[in-house]
């Protein structure tokens, strides 16, 4: 019984970090209405940024946020503004331009292979890592400290994004654009600028996830792929475009992955995750926590 509780706790913690990795995906989809296939690559770029920031400056891993957040925001903003925006302008009258998906797939391949070229295929992990193997003891249970901190980071990030979207002029403009681009333009909102900012915020959020992962996850050029597919499942489970949905979807996946092996062969857990994904698609395509309203 104790094992199950311990696994549940670890599942919730790891799941919230999965949710954090998927949050940027859901933000970008919510506003641009296209799935960003380069999302895993953004996470990979964020992890390399965090790795080098920590390794070169020798700061505590979480202090890398001060560098990674602005760097990833600028990277996402520029990527959307330079590479993706021209496609949106060319397909002005299409609500969900499929060609953008193909472009983001191209970005994925280019980023992953550029990283391979520059940094090589080897797995890297932090050498001087104060969080390495650190555990909290709860009675006879053990909880991984960096995962617990990741959980806190995920909650704070979700709350911050929520407040930003609700309370600021830019946040309201982003929400308005996500609901009705044309009406938003009549309010004086430049939709392409909003896309840039939303992509920047999505990338910065992914950067935060990268920093949360770096104390216990290796960095390598294709690290994003692992989280990519998980991310897609999580945002569909939680409801595309929903921040809290991403967090809860992540926790569901984390729980299944961590508690499942107590009762069955570990490989079966993946089948359960995909099965649940299919059931949600059949029964409630807007996701468990998504709005019924068609954006």
């Amino acid at each position, binding site marked *: 019984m104790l094992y199950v509780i311990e696994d549940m706790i670890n599942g919730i913690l790891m799941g919230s970090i999965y949710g954090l990795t998927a949050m940027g995906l859901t933000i970008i989809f919510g506003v641009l209405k296209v799935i960003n296939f380069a999302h895993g690559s953004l996470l990979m770029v964020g992890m390399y940024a965090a790795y080098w920031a920590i390794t070169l400056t020798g700061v505590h891993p979480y202090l890398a946020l001060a560098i990674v957040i602005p760097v990833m925001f600028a990277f996402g903003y520029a990527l959307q503004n330079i590479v993706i925006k021209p496609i949106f302008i060319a397909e002005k009258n299409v609500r969900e331009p499929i060609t953008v998906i193909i472009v983001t797939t191209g970005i994925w391949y280019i980023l992953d292979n550029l990283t391979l070229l520059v940094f090589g295929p080897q797995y890297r992990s932090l050498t001087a890592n104060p969080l390495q193997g650190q555990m909290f003891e709860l009675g006879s249970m053990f909880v991984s400290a960096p995962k617990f901190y990741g959980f806190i980071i995920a909650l704070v990030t979700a709350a911050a994004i929520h407040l930003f979207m*609700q309370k600021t*002029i830019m946040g*309201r*403009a982003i*929400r*308005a654009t996500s*609901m*009705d681009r*044309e*009406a*938003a*333009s*009549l*309010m*004086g*909102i*430049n939709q392409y600028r909003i896309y840039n900012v939303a992509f920047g915020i999505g990338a910065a959020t992914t950067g935060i996830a990268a920093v949360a992962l770096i104390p216990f996850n290796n960095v390598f050029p294709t690290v994003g792929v692992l989280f990519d597919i998980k991310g897609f499942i999580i945002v569909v489970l939680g409801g595309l475009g929903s921040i809290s949905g991403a967090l809860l979807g992540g926790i569901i996946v984390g729980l299944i992955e961590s508690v499942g092996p107590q009762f069955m062969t570990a490989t079966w857990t993946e089948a359960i995750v995909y099965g649940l994904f299919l059931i949600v698609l059949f029964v409630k395509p807007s996701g468990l926590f998504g*709005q019924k*309203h068609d954006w």
Partner: protein
Amino acid sequence: MSLLEIEKIDASYGDVQVIFELSLKVEKKEVVSIIGGNGAGKSSLLRVISGLMKPSAGRITFEGRAIHTEPPENIVTHGVVHVPEGRRLFPLMSVKDNLLVGAYNSRARGETDKTLAEVYELLPRLAERENQLAMTLSGGEQQMVAIGRGLMAKPQLLMLDEPSLGLAPILIRDIFKTVRQIADHGITVLMVEQDVRHSLSLSDRGYVLEHGRVVMEGKADVLIDDPHIKKAYLGI
């Protein structure tokens, strides 16, 4: 110089031309109605003025400045505010947030709080409902939010596209009363309507559109007695 001058514009959706050599003027502080049946090009005309559609020929000036080449987000900043057909509220945002987004443009933003108080004074119902999601409101209330959101943008020219569409007669009266009050505040109004009697009775001038062309124009009180208009639009 008129506030808004439209000179011989053509406009099309793809290959289908909907506006032909249309010219129109709106003077400062006027209330002007554009009337005409379905498909006459009324809504398209407003879409061209607000920049949602680009004219293929002709010229539009506002306060002497050519605006027909500018994107909608710049045109609204000059003070030309379009309250679109079907209201187009942001459905999952609260009434208050809808209004606040209305004041996004740089000219209106600094005075957001002051304008919001004025809008609440003009439309007290919105103050009561400020925390409700826009999608949960009735049609009449939604139209009030749409007009209030337009006012938040600090219009010099407020363009209303069928504000009475789909509303019960008693609500239609409220809407037109509100339009009158807005005009009395000194805001120029250009209104597209199918409710010809109501709209002409509160307008200074009117234009009649048929098949994308102006077929008649004049003072509202003259138009309302015109035999063609009586027959075609008032059913008398």
